[in-house]
């Protein structure tokens, strides 16, 4: 499957905006990504190994948080996983 890397994390992915990885599930695909690009791990995961709260994962157009199997959801070669840090703020 293809994982799309957001602008801030490309530095840690060899400058690439997308990375092809193997894996039967989202979790396995992320493991594959961070094995080939270890510096990405601390930007994506907490010390406890959970996805950081501000990092959104989208399997195609679906929020992984709302998939029944979440990160254990099965993936196929044609799927895409987008890593998207959140955007918010405000005057006060």
């Amino acid at each position, binding site marked *: 499957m293809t994982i799309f890397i957001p602008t*801030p994390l490309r530095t840690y992915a060899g400058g690439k905006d997308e990375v092809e990885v193997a894996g039967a599930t989202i979790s396995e695909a992320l493991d594959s990504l961070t094995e080939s690009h270890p510096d990405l791990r*601390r930007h994506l995961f907490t010390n406890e190994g959970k996805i950081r709260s501000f990092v959104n994962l*989208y399997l195609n157009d679906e929020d992984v948080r709302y998939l029944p199997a979440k990160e254990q959801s099965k993936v196929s070669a044609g799927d895409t996983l987008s890593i998207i840090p*959140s*955007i918010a*703020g*405000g005057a*006060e």
Partner: protein
Amino acid sequence: MSTLYVSKAVYDQMRAHGEETYPQECCGAMLGRPDGDRWSVVEAVRAGNTRTDSAHNRYNIAPVELVRIQRSAREKGLEIAGFYHSHPDHPAQWSPTDFAEAHWLGCSYVITSVAQGKATVTNAFLLEGASEEEKRFEQQAIEIGGQ
């Protein structure tokens, strides 16, 4: 101080967006290309503000909209260079909320103050730092291009 290069059209579009949504905050993404050690912004993409509960002083872009913006940028050979939003009747300075919710390291955050419906000051801040724990905002000069 680093510089953010923005085309005149994009600069005007971002400020006009803030005037249109006043007294609520507007928000959107800036698409561009790396130009040496700075971003050159060539397109602004409007986004919806999902914080309808407190849109006068909060903004949030739905992640699925960001996914689509990122896809669209890639198809055009552009990158997400940063984001913009407005501060209705507040200064064009980042707030503690802006800082806490900023996670796009290396990207620019543009803020336009809109006073009584009229865009006044526009500032840019680069989110610097090698990690979330080391992040900081540094003000940038905005260079406005001729197009």
